[in-house]
């Protein structure tokens, strides 16, 4: 049986979106990479039919996506399923925007994404923003709501305590 005709065992199962794939940007990048891979393989087949073409080096994200789901990128139907999955995910997955005071590290982002996918939605996409004025904490925005977990908001919430503390110091406020 040709590899193109083999059906993946995990085709019916729910695909996993790796933590490395944080958000829409990574999704689009994966789609572009898959398209490029598809074009490359098609071109190689045209040049040397019947000869196994050497697979171009794929990115870590694509490897993780394919590896975590048991897909073989050499198989066209797997690539097609992955592409469909990526498009569906881009179209339907909830995008959560989080603004931070500084540019986060990959590990930090991965932990955030892992928590979101574990607790909110398995395909939740994270879109990061930079907002230095919040000092510490973060501001989370979903489609309809915004949750301010910043230090600035904490100060606002505790304004009476803050005024009480300062008033105790100056005796004027």
């Amino acid at each position, binding site marked *: 049986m040709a590899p193109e005709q083999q059906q993946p065992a995990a085709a019916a199962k729910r695909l996993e979106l790796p933590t490395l794939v944080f958000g829409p940007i990574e999704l689009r990048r994966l789609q572009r990479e898959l398209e490029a891979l598809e074009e490359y393989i098609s071109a190689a087949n045209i040049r040397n039919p019947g000869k196994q073409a050497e697979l171009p080096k794929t990115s870590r994200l694509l490897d993780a996506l394919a590896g975590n789901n048991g897909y073989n990128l050499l198989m066209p139907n797997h690539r097609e399923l992955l592409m469909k999955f990526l498009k569906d995910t881009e179209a339907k997955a909830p995008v959560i925007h989080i603004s931070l005071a500084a540019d986060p590290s990959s590990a930090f982002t991965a932990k955030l994404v892992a928590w979101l996918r574990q607790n*909110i939605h398995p395909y939740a996409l994270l879109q990061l923003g930079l907002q230095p004025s919040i000092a510490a*904490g973060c501001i989370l925005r979903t489609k309809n709501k915004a949750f301010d977990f910043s230090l600035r908001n904490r100060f606002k919430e505790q304004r009476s305590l803050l005024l009480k503390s300062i008033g105790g110091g100056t005796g004027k406020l």
Partner: protein
Amino acid sequence: MTIWWLILILSFILAGGSAFIYMAIRLSKVATQKKTLEDFEGQAEKDVEHIFNDEFREELRNRGRLHFEKILGENAMFLQQDLRLTTSQLNEYMKDQISKDLKNAFANYENAISDAKQLAVESITKTKEVIDEQRSTMTSQLEKEVSDEKARRVKRLEENMADVVNHYVLAAIGNQIDLNDQLEYILGELEANKKEILEDVNNGA
């Protein structure tokens, strides 16, 4: 009584005799003098040419000249005295008049100066009152504005206290806040608001 009458009659007789004798003596003297005067007049008429000769006339002329000069001198002296007196009186009069005029002028000047001074004092007093009033108004206005500004600033500070403190914290230790140290806090906040996030994600359009 008879004696006394006799004595009185004898006295009258003696007095009458005495008066008769006196009158006789007197009349004889007057007749003598009259005769002497007539002699003199006749002699004078004879010697008139002899008495009023050239020397006598010259003497009379000199006497007259001297007398005239004396009268002239006396008159000149009187005139000079009168002139001096008149000049003195005129000076006194002029002095008095000028002093009077000057006094009147000075009195007028003093009145004018007094009026001007009074006007100036009134003007200064009014100006001072106006200035005091304006100063009072400005002081109260300034105090009100300062009070309002203070209240406004305190209110703004109270309203923006969170931002102020946040800005201060950010400026003071912003560079030292590690994002990794915040992960636990952020995850805790996410966990605390998990339900609301889930609801919005699941029910969002």
